[in-house]
């Protein structure tokens, strides 16, 4: 059985390697999220969920929400490989002083997932998108 264990590990690893994400050179994720209009709906849905989220609403209570929406749409569009330019400030600068926790980050991810579910974005597309945001956690939390 020892051999079959390593076989399974090997198989799962080669599966992972075989199916690993392409680098963000194509715009297929942008298309799958419904282009700019789709991304705007997702961002607005996320902000609506945040507005009802006791865990993190406090951070957004006094911000210029139109600006945040516009910058988030640009940012998500760029992350997804779309033809946009991000004109906001660096993530580190924006979130400085908030001292966001790991839990705050996960709460926002949950609100984003809820918004994507409402837009009927398939789980596999959601995963691709979240995979591009996850590495940015370090620029956002504990600043």
């Amino acid at each position, binding site marked *: 059985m020892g051999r079959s264990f390593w076989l*399974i590990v090997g198989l799962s690893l080669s599966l992972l390697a075989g199916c690993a994400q392409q680098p963000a050179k194509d715009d297929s994720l942008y298309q799958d999220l419904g282009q700019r209009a789709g991304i705007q709906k997702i961002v607005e849905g996320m902000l609506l969920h945040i507005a009802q989220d006791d865990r993190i609403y406090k951070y957004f209570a006094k911000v210029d929400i139109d600006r945040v929406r516009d910058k988030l749409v640009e940012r998500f569009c760029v992350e997804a490989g779309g033809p946009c330019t991000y004109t906001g400030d660096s993530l580190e600068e924006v979130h400085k002083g908030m001292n966001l926790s*790991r*839990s705050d980050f996960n709460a926002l991810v949950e609100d984003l997932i809820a918004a994507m579910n409402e837009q009927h974005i398939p789980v596999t597309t959601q995963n691709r998108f979240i995979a591009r945001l996850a590495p940015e956690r370090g620029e956002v939390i504990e600043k």
Partner: protein
Amino acid sequence: MALSLSMYLNPVVLASVVGACAAWVSPAADAEQGRLIATGGASSIEGGAGGGIIPWAMLAGYDEQGEWGGNAFATHVDLPDYTLDVVGAAASYGNRVEISYAHQRFDLGSLVSKLNLPEDNLTQDIFGVKVRLFGDLIYDQLPQVSAGLEYKHQNDFLIPSLVGAKRDSDVEGYVTASRLFMGAAFGYNVVVNAGLRYSRANETGLMGFGGDRRDTRSVLKEGGAAILFNPHWAVGMDYREKPDNLSFAGESDWADFFVGWFPNKHVSVVLAYARLGEIATLDNQNGTYLSVQGSF
């Protein structure tokens, strides 16, 4: 503490267990539960967060820094000649350290009359501690790596001693790593887990520790993998290598194939096919595994 098997299989009792857990967690509804759903794992048969038959590197509950989390669970394994029932609980703090307790009861079924055994069940208590050493299941560069210790005490040592087991309690350790790979299998998230255990437990300790054939600890491989079809449904498997310390019977490595359902951060259910092989001379002990967990 030992609840009978019919209690677990009775859906009314099961529902009330789930209900009780839900009621019990509601005072703690302000607990922040800062981790993402399903990252508290299922409850392994030894009490800690994991898959079914092995611990994984994640910690019980949904706590992040500065928060508490935990769970209580009941598991029933129905084999051709035996049944295994486990109840237990685990708590963790700050996604850093986990403590756990499990009580296992192994009913010897037909073996009792076949061998004229003096007892019809074996029980064991397991106290565990697990520490996340570094890394993160989802974020950060490194996978989440945890190390754990388990103190096990076998409560009915007569039968194990008759077949050559050397002691009724022991400590064992393990190191385990888990990582979620986003979109890794056909776009779905995959969690992969691999670990090493240093143990001389016979049938995880239900048949005592050490034996006539070998009385030193062995390094044993453990591993598992699961695909998440969405944040609420997981399908996967666990594998656990086991030592072979007693000459009276062979001891098989174990595997299970599971479906896990995490409807919310308070309840989860795991249904599995457990391949436990030969146990105490009876072969082909392969059957169903059902585990219900309430988290807070």
